[in-house]
């Protein structure tokens, strides 16, 4: 039974260091249902590490993480079922077609009756006509879209996007924007990192800056959301300090 979790993602006291290199320390993070959290941060601030920890790929040294109320340490598979990841690499096999890759992941996630679902996500990212092409033959942007299709295939509660705009053309960016809007409207959550201030602020409900091993959330008390100029200024200011 799914516990009635108030937050989609809840992280407490996360610490991670690589040998002598501290990356994250005393990091707290919570993302409500139906919201997009956009993370900004300088290169090497630990954005990718944080996403890889939330994606269950990297084990934090300390701290606890819960996704939809499921604790990562005790129920890792429940957490993995509820998370979709788009990182720098597509996680697809070059010598298989888009459809084969998606069927493979659908089977790994144990999806029942996956054929229509595969067609549906291919349609969503605009790859229906390329479904039976090998991933190797696709352009970078199309590979990224295929990766997005892979991430949303199992309808996760939380989507993790690491600089998703990289390599995407304008059309693909707008496809992704629409998809994310639908996603949060349906009550699901998104955490994404980006270097594009305008894009991030137009897609996010909350903005945070990763600095000094922690997430510093920027206030968004006024009703205008985070598109207000005060947030923009605050983020720019926080990034300058790095």
């Amino acid at each position, binding site marked *: 039974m799914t516990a009635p979790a108030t937050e989609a993602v809840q992280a407490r006291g996360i610490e991670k260091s690589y040998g002598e290199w501290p990356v994250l320390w005393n990091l707290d993070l919570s993302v409500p249902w139906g919201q997009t959290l956009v993370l900004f941060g300088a290169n090497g601030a630990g954005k990718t590490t944080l996403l*890889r920890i939330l994606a269950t*790929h990297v084990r934090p040294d300390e701290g606890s993480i819960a996704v939809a109320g499921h604790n990562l340490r005790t129920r890792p*598979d429940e957490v993995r079922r509820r998370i979709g990841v788009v990182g720098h690499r597509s996680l697809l*096999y070059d*010598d298989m077609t888009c459809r084969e890759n998606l069927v*493979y992941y659908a*089977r*790994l996630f144990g999806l029942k009756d996956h054929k229509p679902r595969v067609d549906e996500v291919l349609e969503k990212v605009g790859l229906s006509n390329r479904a039976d092409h090998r991933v190797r033959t696709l352009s970078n942007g199309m590979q990224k879209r295929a990766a997005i299709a892979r991430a949303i295939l199992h309808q996760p509660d939380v989507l993790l996007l690491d600089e998703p705009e990289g390599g995407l053309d304008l059309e693909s960016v707008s496809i992704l924007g629409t998809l994310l809007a639908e996603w949060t409207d349906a009550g699901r959550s998104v955490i994404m990192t980006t270097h594009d201030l305008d894009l991030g602020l137009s897609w996010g409900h909350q903005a945070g800056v990763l600095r000094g091993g922690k997430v510093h959330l920027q206030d968004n008390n006024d009703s205008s959301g985070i598109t207000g100029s005060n947030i923009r200024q605050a983020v720019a200011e926080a990034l300058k300090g790095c």
Partner: protein
Amino acid sequence: MKGLLRPVLVIVWKDILLELRSRDLVVSVLVFGLLVVVVFNFALNNAPGRAEQLAPGILWSAFAFSAILAMNRAFVRDQEQGGLEGLLISPVSRDAIFLGKALTSLIFMLLIEAALLPVYAVMLDFSALTFTLVLTIFLGTLGFAVVGTLFSAMAVQTRSREIMLPVLFFPVVLPVIIAAVEASTRAVGGETFVGLGRWLPLIGVFDALFLVICPWVFAYVMEE
């Protein structure tokens, strides 16, 4: 048990599909396996009458070196675009990932050996199609696949991985090689199952032991 089998088969299906597309593993290892036998034939001066003595040793040297070559590639395709990462963030147990990769390697190696064996039998002049020899080959290859998958997963992440795998693999599988050569010598000599003595049970113990240990430590190897 059923929850374990399904993802294992999904992984095997994926690897076989990729192999069918590229064919770069099985075919190249096959050619290599033939070369090894030709080289050994001259290196050991395999004259008529000595073949039955030398054949098992040549056979297992060729199989062991082919295994190294095949295992070196076992995780390469999973590294290219992050396929292994994709597996690790899926709700699939680490045991299933290990068993899937080990089963794939076992299938590939058995295929290669099945193709090489008749050729070896003709070249080295021994009778290949005996139950005892086939059983020995199966058990020995299982040992190679289990230990090789574990070390391949480690080696693929280290510097100079092509060298790291044999350095880790050979000392550990030495008992399998010794026992397999001894069992094969008897099998080629026409002994029955009982005649193989304790060599088959020795391989069996090795296989069983490492089928328990390897999946367990594999989970730690996969951890970031």
